[in-house]
């Protein structure tokens, strides 16, 4: 850090990172924590921490995107949040996220119950599977990015996501089989 031009470039780059990924970090925090108040805290802490280590992260990234690094910070802070408060992660449905989803009203009403069922299933997944799904579907991250954020190999990440989806499928099948049995009785 001995060159003013470097500092200016770093500041510009951080500004870009912040603008590009504020929504990603907030979405991740919200789905990980389950309420807006704590999601705001987590987002704030993530960016402040990122700020402190941005120079080094940028040097070590060798030009790779920094979103996985940013999400990894949020991931670690969320883990601390649960450890400190002895809370279990939750995934909340009844808020802006589902309501604001870009779908038609009719489709929304039809899908709402199914979405609730899926979210119930997600809340019962092991932490690593749930996190991988949040990164994939809320942040649209690919396997490589998710692998970097979780500190796993790409192959292991692919398997993790596949198993998470398979577990949800099975849960939905069991639920619908239970519903049908209930109707027959």
């Amino acid at each position, binding site marked *: *850090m001995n060159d*003013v031009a470097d*500092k*200016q470039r*770093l*500041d*510009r780059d*951080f*500004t870009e990172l*912040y603008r590009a990924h*504020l*929504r*990603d970090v*907030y*979405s991740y925090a*919200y*789905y990980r924590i389950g309420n*807006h108040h704590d*999601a*705001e805290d987590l*987002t*704030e802490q993530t*960016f*402040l921490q990122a*700020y*402190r280590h*941005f*120079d080094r992260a940028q040097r070590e990234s060798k030009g790779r995107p920094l979103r996985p690094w940013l999400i990894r910070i949020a991931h670690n802070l969320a883990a601390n949040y649960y450890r400190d408060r002895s809370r279990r992660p939750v*995934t909340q*449905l009844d808020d*802006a*996220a*589902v309501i*604001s*989803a*870009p*779908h038609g009203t009719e489709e929304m009403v039809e*899908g709402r119950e*199914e*979405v609730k069922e*899926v*979210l119930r299933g*997600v809340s019962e997944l092991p932490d690593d599977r749930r996190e991988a*799904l*949040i990164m*994939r*579907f*809320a*942040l649209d991250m690919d396997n490589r990015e998710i692998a970097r954020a979780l500190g796993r190999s790409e192959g292991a990440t692919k398997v993790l996501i596949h198993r998470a*989806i*398979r577990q*949800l*499928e099975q849960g*939905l*099948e069991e639920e619908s089989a239970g519903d049908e049995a209930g109707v027959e009785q």
Partner: protein
Amino acid sequence: MSDAERVERLLKMAFAPVEPPEALSDRLERGLTEMADAAADELSEWELSAMSDPRNWVRPAAAVVVGSMAAGGLVLVRARQQQKKRQGSGLRALERSLRDVADDLEKRLRG
């Protein structure tokens, strides 16, 4: 549609991206500014009392790094403020404000 595709479609609906509240950006920018102030204070104290003693250089050197990084927070703050004022000129306004802040930063570092 296969069961897996159906689950993926439902997951996309369930995990729609969530827009952060406006107040969060303001709060975050305040935090960055406070960090800049704290680092600047530490740097000033060091300049007055410890310049002659090399054993004291490590911590304030870290403050220089944090301070210069945190000053970038001001880039965010000012860029946003100026962007709000000049909504019509969009990116040009942002670039201009970044140049202004970069000049300020350069002056501070040289002064």
